[in-house]
């Protein structure tokens, strides 16, 4: 699954640590999400989308589509 997390974070000039704090996850989790090593659970995906005031599908895209 692809995501635009790194771009969205950079647009807002946030650090990984700040984003991690907002999402209440570890900085390592944010890094793993950004590098595509780890896919979030549905609740975390919705939390991310809500934080960026976007829809889930605007943040995450299925690579097979």
């Amino acid at each position: 699954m692809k995501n635009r997390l790194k771009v969205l974070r950079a647009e807002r000039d946030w650090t990984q640590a700040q984003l991690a704090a907002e999402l209440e996850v570890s900085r390592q989790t944010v890094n793993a999400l950004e590098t595509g090593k780890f896919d979030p659970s549905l609740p975390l995906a919705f939390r991310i989308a809500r934080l960026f005031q976007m829809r889930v599908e605007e943040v995450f895209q299925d690579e097979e589509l």
Partner: protein
Amino acid sequence: MNDSKSPTRCAGAPRDRANGRRVMLWSIGWATTMLLASAAISFDQFGDGTVAFIAAGVSLIFGAGTVGAYRQFLNETDELRQKVELEALAVAFGFGVVGGMAYAQISRALGLGDPRLAIVIAGMLIVHAIGVAVGMRRYA
């Protein structure tokens, strides 16, 4: 995002540290009471077994506390850490079952006597610790 919200707002890390400390304290208590129970069983072998029974019961309570504390740690930790722990637990479980059985068969085949359960358990703990370290490194 409000800039006044510092990274310390992240509930994950401090909560994980507190839960991790709880697991460690329960584990130390369990290991200590298990050693005391082993000693009590050795010294009480000609008695009626009451002291050994009580010591084993106390150790069992600390063991249950360790399991409960670890369960709480797993439930409340970050979801990436949950994935890392799950993978490490799977490898440790596999090591325990497959490695334990192989060890038992080799012990019997070579006439080394009964296999020691403590060796298998220690091996599982080591494999789990290595698995967590490797997982954390993989997702770093």
